[in-house]
């Protein structure tokens, strides 16, 4: 059995009268690719954001190594976001002022100097076959290339857990396949956890576990 790297207990979040997360309890293991499917507006993205410390919750806890990370100070939460979590969003959100290489460097600059960050970023680009596009700005890249950059950016600090919120929502079939393979490889070959919210039917080929989210509740 793989280690439990992340668990949530009675996690709840409301926006006014709308329940986005309703007493969710789950344990996520390492070396595992989780897919969460559900209708739009069910609260999947909110769940992911609370797990990843991007959103506060009303009640409940998220444990990493026995520590409730929701109760930490903002500085320690930031440290967890830097070292423990990586985020991939549907719209990539690459910084238009920076090249592909520099976009990968930005997360690394928190803990590395510029030269080291540049060198590590180049290695990552080579791994995904985009080294020749390192000096291109996001608007010079295709949608698929941008999303691949966004995925490797999430891997920049070697996080233990990748939280991907509909990473292939804007992509065609081929690019979707590339992105899922990248995430799958990261989970299995590097012993990490990937939690991916998606509407795609193709996910079942890659995910180790399929979870369903409905009206704030998580079902297996």
């Amino acid at each position, binding site marked *: 059995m793989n280690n439990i790297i992340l668990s949530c207990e009675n996690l709840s979040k409301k926006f006014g009268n709308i329940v986005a997360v309703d007493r969710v309890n789950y344990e996520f293991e390492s070396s595992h690719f989780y897919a969460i499917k559900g209708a739009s507006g069910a609260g999947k993205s909110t769940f992911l954001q609370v797990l990843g410390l991007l*959103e506060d919750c009303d009640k409940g806890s998220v444990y990493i190594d026995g520590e409730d990370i929701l109760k930490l100070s903002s500085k320690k939460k*930031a440290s*967890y976001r*830097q070292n423990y979590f990586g985020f991939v969003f*549907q*719209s990539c*959100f690459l910084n238009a002022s920076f090249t592909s290489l520099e976009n990968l460097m*930005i997360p690394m600059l928190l803990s590395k100097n*510029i030269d080291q960050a540049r060198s590590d970023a180049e290695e990552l680009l080579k791994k995904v076959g985009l080294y020749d596009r390192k000096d291109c700005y996001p608007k010079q890249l295709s949608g698929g290339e941008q999303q691949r950059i966004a995925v490797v950016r999430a891997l920049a600090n070697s996080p233990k857990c990748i939280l991907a919120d509909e990473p292939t929502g804007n992509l065609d079939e081929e690019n979707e396949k590339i992105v899922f393979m990248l995430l799958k490889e990261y989970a299995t070959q590097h012993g990490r956890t990937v939690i991916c919210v998606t509407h795609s039917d193709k996910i079942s080929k890659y995910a180790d576990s399929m979870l369903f989210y409905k009206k704030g509740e998580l079902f297996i």
Partner: protein
Amino acid sequence: MSFKNKFFIIRKSLFREKTRSIVGLILMTIILLCVLLALEILHFFSEINDSINKNFIDARCCVLSMDSDVSTDDVVSLYENKDFVDMIIDGLSYTTSVTYKTDDVNYALNLQACVEGCVPDVTNGEDLDFNKKNQVLLPETMILSGNNNTTKKIDTASLIGKKIVCSFYSMDYTTIVDDTNKEIVFGGTPNGEVIIELTVVGTYDNNHYFQQPHTAFISALTANEMHMSDIKDKTGYTQSSIMIVTDSVKSINKVHDIASNNNIFCSNKVSFDSKSYIMMRVFTCIFIFILILICIWIANISVKMDLKKNVCDYVMLVAYGYTDNNVMSILIIKYLAMYLGSVILSIFISLPVSSLVSQYLHNIDGNIYNIRISFFAVVCLIAICVIITLFTILNLSMTLFKFTVKDLSRIQ
């Protein structure tokens, strides 16, 4: 996170947004340049106004000069403790004209404020002590009629230690410094009645003093009292420059002509009065205040536009693990760099501009003051830069961290 890493992000960000950065820089530079020039003009007014405000009342160390006219011996003896003379002032600056009133007669008493470096040698009594107030030196010889040849004299040494009590209207005099660095006093407005008590501390040798090449003053109530003969006769020192004191600003042209016609050096004249100075200074201060408000407004608009355009980038920084302080410091350094850049540019541009304005000011008759960049103005500009930065920080802290990942979701 190191400063070098932060600077990497800022530099790339500014370079990529260079059009907006340059426009912001130019706008701020123009406004700060206007602030700087206004500060220089304020300094210019202050220099002139400082000259105006040197007042006999403040000094209260004075000399009664040679050729003193004393009305009668009776008057002198009547006021043993209070003595006065009517004289021609010699070698000093800033006069005031007083009228000593008795039951029957008004006597004019001309006291000359004394400044350090312009004091005759004391023959009896004490030197003037500029740390003490209300002291006066009398000339050794005081004569009746103001004529050097009279034999009727008063021994002023006997008056040492005695008091002179005066009631007079103090005057605000206008002064300028001419090209040879002599001070010219002209014009004045009454500034209220003042009563002072002066102590006679010593006397000086007015003959000896008289022979020194000092500036001579002729006190004249109106220009009609000025005659060619008066100038040559009363002073006898046509070789010396003359300061002409008149209460009437309107008389200055005639006085100037008379002096010039007698081959007496007379500098150009310039006429300001203290009220116009105050008005100009107040107006300039208000103008500077408005410019500062405009700077703050531009800075705030700039921040809002930046945040609106780049909200995703800043929220993503938080997702990467950047703390609120990291994000805030990156933004503050970015804006501070722009503001400081504007300060430096405005200083450099102000140098040729103030040189041009100075040339114009120098062409005004009698004006010897210039506008120039002063250390005070640069410090003010940097202080304004700091104030704008503080407002930027306030704006950022109120708006930046309201953005959350929900804003990303909306954009998605």
